[in-house]
């Protein structure tokens, strides 16, 4: 097991001669602590897979260094990095039994058969596969097969990290639940570094202790699920985490306070200095509430999502989303809203204005 460090890593895929390089990864300095449960979250094409391939050694970055426990491995091939990988689609030898599938990575490395049995049985137990060990893998359901893939990733105890590339995409939501809990439980039991790549915020937030959010080749924030929810550093984090995402509304600054469509907003600390660039306020739908003396809005739509309701509001030409619990009532006339000052953020060119943050 190891701490994994990215030092000034950048990567550009080859371009035709004479063209400027286009970076799929912008400068990344990042430490993955030994034994951590990480999620790498972002939309398709944001550079997640590129980053993962750099860790596993399938790709050598065009600039920068990768260190495992302080030792440089930038040019080390995959086979010498001791990384286990689980992919989106189950990779299973159909003709082998479940036992032989799980034993494969160990036998491949010439492990003593007695130790193989011991280890396979232990992993099978953790994944509730014990009763299936003698069955042929081909007879299993999709989630059963993916469990074997997970098991094969977990079976080697000497790996530096396990990388999961969207491992639950093909699994039904009902089972996703169980496998996600299982993975988390396994992480607590084995304490290996796990990096879980996904575009699904729910998977990322429920699995990880720390989430690395990527957007257009840049790591825009690394934080706990709570930090990402309460203090998005970039408008993309606000938008991408949370459903519906954060309201991002145009604003101006007057006397250190944001002003939205001529309505002054309260924030805990005044903004110092003169901000140059695109100015916006961010407020999560969860922190918008009805108030007698607030900003007048019209209610365009109310969606009943069972345990909560999502309201679509407009003020002038701006759209504001708001979340209410199932038992809250909607004012019948002249609805007005206000934003919770402690959760109102100011963004300048998409990055949070730190002065406005009051922890």
């Amino acid at each position: 097991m190891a701490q994994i460090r990215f030092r000034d890593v950048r990567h550009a895929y080859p371009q035709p001669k004479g063209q400027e390089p286009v970076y799929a990864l912008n400068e990344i300095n990042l430490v993955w602590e030994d034994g951590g449960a990480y999620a790498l979250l972002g939309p398709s094409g944001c550079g997640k897979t590129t980053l993962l391939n750099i860790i596993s050694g399938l790709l050598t970055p065009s600039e920068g260094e990768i260190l495992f426990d302080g030792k440089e491995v930038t040019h080390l091939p995959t086979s010498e990095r001791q990384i286990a990988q689980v992919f989106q689609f189950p990779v299973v030898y159909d003709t082998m039994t479940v036992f032989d599938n799980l034993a494969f990575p160990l036998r491949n490395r010439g492990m003593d058969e007695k130790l193989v049995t011991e280890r396979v049985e232990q992993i099978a137990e953790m994944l509730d596969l014990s009763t299936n060990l003698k069955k042929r893998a081909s007879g299993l359901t999709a989630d059963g097969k993916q469990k074997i893939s997970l098991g094969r990733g977990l079976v080697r105890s000497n790996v530096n990290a396990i990388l999961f590339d969207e491992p639950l995409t093909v699994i039904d939501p009902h089972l996703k639940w169980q496998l996600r809990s299982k993975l988390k439980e396994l992480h607590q039991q084995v304490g290996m570094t796990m990096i879980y790549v996904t575009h699904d915020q729910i998977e990322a937030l429920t699995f990880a202790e720390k989430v690395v959010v990527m957007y257009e080749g840049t790591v825009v924030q690394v934080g706990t699920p709570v930090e990402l929810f309460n203090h998005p550093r970039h408008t993309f984090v606000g938008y991408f985490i949370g459903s519906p995402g954060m309201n991002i509304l145009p604003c101006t600054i007057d006397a250190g306070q944001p002003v939205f469509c001529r309505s002054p907003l309260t924030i805990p600390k005044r903004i110092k200095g003169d901000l140059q660039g695109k100015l916006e306020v961010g407020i999560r739908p969860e922190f918008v509430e009805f108030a007698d003396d607030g900003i007048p809005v019209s209610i365009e739509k109310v969606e009943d999502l069972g345990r909560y309701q999502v309201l679509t509001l407009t003020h002038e030409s701006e759209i504001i989303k708001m979340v209410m619990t199932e038992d809250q009532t909607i004012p019948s006339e002249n609805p007005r809203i206000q934003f919770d000052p402690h959760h109102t953020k100011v963004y300048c060119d998409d990055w949070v204005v730190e002065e406005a943050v009051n922890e």
Partner: protein
Amino acid sequence: MSIELRNITFRVGAEPHIYETSLTLEPGGFNILLGTTLSGKTTLMRLMAGLEKPTTGEIWASGKNVTRLPVQQRSVAMVYQSFINYPSFSVYDNIASPLKVAGLNKQEIDEKVHRFADLLKLTPMLHRLPRELSGGQQQRTALARALVKGAELVLLDEPLANLDYKLREELRDELPKLFADTGATVVYATTEPLEALMLGGNTATLKEGRVVQFGKTSAIYRKPATMESAEVFSDPPINSAAISKRGDQAVLGKVASWRVPEQFAALPDGEYKIGLRPHHLLLSGQGVEVNGTVQIAEISGSESIIRIRVNGNVWVSQTQGIHAFEYGEKVRIYFDASHCMYFGTDDQLIDL
């Protein structure tokens, strides 16, 4: 068009895929088939489209028996989970293809392609090839092709499953609006309860080749007719437990007891079941108190999802705020008895 399944069954060889089902879909409605993989969603759609013939029973469309009518003669469009486009055609030609087959003139085709490209935000990409598009754009192209035909019945088989989370959120919002204008009857298959609620309309819950219940989406969520329907329509899974009823008391093992509503109290004493949604099981508050042992706590942004072992069952509490727990920690949980759904041992809802 209206679609009516009259006592249909579908077998492959001796194996039943769809058990006897009757279902009526109103013209212009948005209908959801909600169920896990292999519950029969795709098979039902293929039957509605005419791609399969029912083993027994009849299918009627707008008052006409279409059971034996081949798919080419029906006004149907279908969109699949994996985006299917012609790889060598531009987006424009992909959208235009069904219109060319139908023999429309150039001007009509051009007008329609632009209208639907505009609706699906594809106008800037009309001259690109599918492989030069993102997944979301490819699926929008497939949707545009299905829409442009003006089919009276549109079947969407998990159309958003392969898309990014946020794109799904956007398209879910747009889809019902898109179809509302066309007047088409839409059938939409999904495995996700929240998706069904977001889309609204009517929902049929499916389990193992049977339609368990059909009705207004929010009504089915609030009043599932059976435990199966409640299970299909709950993610995280609904909490259930066996209880015994004695007089006006519900007794949950040695763990808890509470007073039941009057109409239920009037029923005979004996064994029953309860269903309780995860967001109604809380870590603080009032009402019925239950002790349990934490199995795992997951934290997602503003809420926590905690699996708790209670009296031999594993329950899930979905609760606001951040609550960290260690494995094996003892907790006390609470629920308001009025949030309990009661079922008979036959799993039928006791309608109170």
